[in-house]
């Protein structure tokens, strides 16, 4: 793990040598400060001048502080550079794993890896490498000087004390690492339990299960506490033994050198006292290092994960012009999740034998209850996943044979909750086509029924959208996303319809925008409100991962089957949404 981290950060490691050098200087100054002060007593007793000693002390203190400053600055410089590098690398490795990796259940975990775990690695770069090296270098140097120039006996005592401190620092390392890993897992379980209680609070209240939920939480808390206690047992043992050695070593060195005269003995003791912090640092960072290594391990896991959709070895030529989209006998299951007991939870196929075609230039609406599999069909058309069995073809070419860059040019996606980045409307539109002119941007906005909205904004295209686009309404966000998709000008469009209720005017505008968008494209609309897709060329009813019906609105209503039942349900569902608002 150390090697991996150093490898990652290699391009920015050079200033670390300055940090280590300055740390050495600061520590040596710490030794010198005490040695000069102790030596000064003998000078004063002999009637020597006091002032030069004090000025020397002032000089040493200033050099020490300055060296410490440079040490910290250079160390943090490397650490922040390395973290930035890690973040950029992580983003690059995650991009081909998206959206599978950042959607659904794993989002929280992944985001915490990408942010908190990256931060934890800081300890390694800023507070580990330097202290580890100087913990050996400084005591070795001071020890050698003591042995050769001051008192071999004191040097022997100091060497023994320092070696013991290093041994103590590694006491219970394995048990602590195991406990840390377990603790993190239990903390995850605690967070999950709290999440459940918050999201399922209706059930908790309805079944008067408050005390039982709290007891369950407490049980997990106690397991975490037991692991914490294991860690604390070792940490306090190490701390106790280290403190014993820290206090005893300098005074034992003094006692050992006393037969050589008190002047010599005092210098020896001061040197040992001054050098000891260099060794103690190991015990201090060792505890943090556990966490940093564990964090690095989790980062590595994510960065080494295979992309959800591998690039073909020999990409096929991308089809041109308008094209058909076809799914043939598609079976697809989402990857299994760990059930928390080391076993994978059984997965239910999200799609089971789906065959359908969206002819070029037509619109197909996918309808069904939530969880039926309609969004999954959209995700497969956009090749966010590959089917387990069967195939998805674009213009007759298997999506798996297309280079990712080509595929992205062919398929454009408007998600249900379009993500807008903090920045202006213009910034968000330019993401789709960085070289677009203002004229093109405005044309796309016109097609997306955004012109009136923009006219109402004093800053127009430069209006900031706020964090996650929260300055805009849901309908406005959706239309910005549509304008963005129009700028892409891809022959295939996957449009996940917005679910929340919009006012009538917005809905009418949005309907108009949708009709513009559909022209000349193969469009899959994932429909949540049936009223908005009655004019689709084809309506496909998905239920429990299978296609149960297909036809036009009129045909399906006449058939009085699944679609007709959904149509009947719709009124009730919208009713409820209205009441809850």
């Amino acid at each position: 793990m150390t090697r991996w981290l150093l490898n990652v950060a290699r391009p920015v490691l050079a200033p670390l040598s300055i940090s280590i050098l300055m740390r050495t200087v600061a520590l040596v100054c710490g030794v010198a400060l005490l040695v000069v002060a102790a030596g000064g007593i003998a000078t004063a007793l002999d009637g020597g001048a006091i002032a030069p000693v004090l000025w020397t002390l002032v000089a040493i203190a200033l050099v020490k502080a300055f060296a410490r400053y440079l040490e910290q600055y250079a160390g943090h410089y490397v650490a922040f550079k390395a973290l930035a590098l890690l973040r950029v690398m992580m983003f690059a490795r995650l991009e081909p794993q998206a959206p599978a990796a950042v959607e659904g259940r794993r989002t929280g975990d992944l985001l915490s890896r990408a942010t908190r775990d990256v931060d934890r690695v800081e300890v390694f770069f800023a507070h580990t490498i330097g202290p580890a090296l100087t913990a050996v270098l400084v005591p070795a140097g001071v020890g050698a000087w003591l042995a050769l120039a001051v008192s071999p006996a004191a040097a022997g005592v100091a060497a023994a004390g320092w070696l013991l401190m290093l041994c103590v620092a590694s006491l219970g390392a394995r048990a602590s690492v195991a406990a840390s890993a377990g603790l993190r897992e239990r903390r995850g379980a605690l967070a999950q339990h709290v999440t459940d209680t918050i999201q399922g609070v209706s059930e908790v209240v309805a079944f008067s299960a408050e005390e039982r939920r709290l007891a369950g939480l407490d049980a997990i808390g106690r397991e975490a506490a037991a692991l914490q206690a294991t860690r604390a047992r070792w940490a306090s043992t190490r701390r106790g033994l280290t403190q014993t050695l820290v206090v005893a070593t300098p005074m034992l060195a003094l006692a050992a050198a006393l037969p050589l005269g008190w002047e010599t003995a005092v210098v020896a003791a001061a040197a040992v006292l001054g050098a000891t912090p260099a060794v103690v640092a190991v015990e201090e960072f060792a505890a943090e290092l556990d966490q940093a290594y564990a964090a690095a391990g989790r980062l590595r896991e994510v960065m080494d994960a295979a992309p959800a959709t591998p690039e073909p070895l020999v990409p096929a030529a991308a089809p041109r012009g308008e094209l058909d989209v076809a799914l043939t006998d598609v079976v697809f299951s989402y990857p299994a999740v760990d059930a928390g007991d080391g076993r994978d939870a059984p997965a239910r196929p999200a799609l089971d034998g789906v065959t359908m075609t969206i002819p070029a230039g037509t619109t197909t609406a996918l309808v069904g209850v939530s969880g039926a599999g309609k969004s999954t069909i959209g995700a497969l058309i956009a090749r966010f996943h590959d089917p387990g069995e069967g195939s998805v073809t674009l213009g007759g070419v298997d999506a798996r044979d297309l280079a990712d860059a080509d595929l992205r040019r062919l398929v454009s996606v408007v998600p249900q909750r379009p993500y807008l980045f903090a920045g202006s409307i213009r910034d968000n539109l330019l993401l789709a086509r960085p070289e677009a002119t203002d004229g093109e941007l405005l044309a796309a906005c016109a097609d997306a029924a955004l012109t009136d909205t923009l006219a109402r904004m004093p800053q127009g295209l430069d209006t900031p959208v706020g964090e996650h686009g929260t300055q805009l309404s849901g309908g406005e966000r959706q239309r910005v996303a549509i304008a963005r998709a129009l700028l892409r000008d891809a022959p295939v469009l996957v449009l996940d319809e917005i679910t929340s209720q919009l006012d009538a005017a917005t809905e009418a505008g949005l309907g108009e925008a949708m009709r513009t968008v559909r022209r000349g494209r193969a469009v899959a609309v994932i429909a949540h409100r049936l009223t908005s897709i009655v004019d689709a060329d084809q309506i496909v009813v998905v239920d429990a991962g299978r296609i149960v019906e297909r036809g036009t609105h009129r045909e399906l209503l006449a058939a009085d089957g699944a679609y007709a039942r959904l149509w009947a349900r719709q009124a009730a569902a919208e009713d409820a949404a209205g009441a809850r608002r």
Partner: protein
Amino acid sequence: MLTYRPLVLGVLATVLAALLYLQAGRAIDDGDAGALALAAIGIAALVGASSWYSTRAASRDQVALEGSDRTRLVRHVIALGPVHRTRAQAGRLVSTSTDAVERSAQYRATFLGSVIGSLLAPLAVVAIIAAAIDLRIALLLLAAVPVVPLAIGGFRKIFRKVSTSYRASARRLAAEYLDSLQGLPTLRGLGAGRARGAALAVHAERVRADVMRLLAGNQLVLFVTDAVFSLAMIVLATGLAMAGAAAGTLTAGEAVAVVLLSTLMTEPVDRIGQFFYIGMGGIASGKEIARTLATPMPRAAADAPEPTDDDGSIVLEDVTFTYGRDASTPVLAGFSLEVRRGERVVLAGRSGAGKSTVLGLIQGHLAAQSGAVRVGGHEVRDVSPAWLHRRLGIVAQQTYLFTGSLAENLRLAAPEASEADLWEALRRARLEAEVRAWPRGLDTPVGERGMSLSGGQAQRVGIARALLADAPILLLDEPTSQTDLDAEAEILAAIAELCEDRTVLAVGHTEAVLSSSTRIVTVGGAA
């Protein structure tokens, strides 16, 4: 809130070390190395034992504080009841109940006490110098002692500004990154991932340069404190010791002891840096917890009385209810409804007419501005929620499944239910055959980390729960509006069975209930 052991033991360790340094001075004067070695071993062992005990005690306190804070928060959240929250709000609540609780406990248990201890330690050292060596030196050093906390206070003011903008920059860096990660699916859908990655790298670099500039200022503060305290303490002490030795008022041993003792007085300096990193985080977490606990609770207290009689009815009398403060457009205005024991009533009405509001009022999740809401003949807000919920069973639009096994999810409704009871409930909920086919049966993990059940399966788990809870009144809140079409018939059959021998109030077109219901009540004008 502060735990005192790290404080007391921290001062004790300093006092012990000071005594050892005095002994060192004595050894220098009388040349008795043996006595010093013995004292060193003895006192070091005591210091070690004290810091062993202190670390251990702090860790235990931390665990205890963490547990009690967590329980208090979650209890509060449950008491707030089913309040609508955005995903972000729910996420923040989870992080307050886990991360913030952990950090605040760490701050209070392990950090605060030892910081105060290290600020008090110099006073103990001064007292020892006064008693054992020289009063005048002690007084001069004492004059320098307040410099430490004063300087910390002063620097805190300067530092707060630097630190605030430093943290703001660091947060901006993190937010930018988070923004890109969360938007990754969108970026990929637009084929803009790589370009955004490059832009992000440039931007991150700019913010990093910012952070470094601020860090330069931040570290400057540490530079000054470090230099000042090394000077103030060690140089002052050495100067006084040398002068004393030259004048003959101090023996060599006493003079050396003063220099050694001064090293104990620089201890607070080492804590300053930590204070801003661990300390500020801990204080902020504590405030976050307090804010959450301060959210007022709308629900009745849990210690309200349990009625002994129950007439099995639901009555709403002249009820007016408004969401928020806008009293001009009440959802319900003068609404009345009576459902007698054994009756079946379906609430009809257009979208937004207040059907779900009626169910919320009956369950006590909402409080009417005026009028009476009675269950079993008792005003809902005056009875214990536990009693109320034993009377009411509910099958809602969606059934929430908790992380854990299917059996645990069913026992939420009836903790004492035997395995046979569970199978019987599953049979009547029309889910038995499917569960028998699962390799782990009742032990199958469900919920977020478990098997993904279809909407229809989850709904039948909800019905099985209602069967196990066996409440006399059943509320149906559009139980089939979100379920798979092919499971609809089975769910309706299961609901029909659930309705037998119960008082039923239903919302939505639940045919099974409609066919045998006695009455349809329209909410808010024509349906």
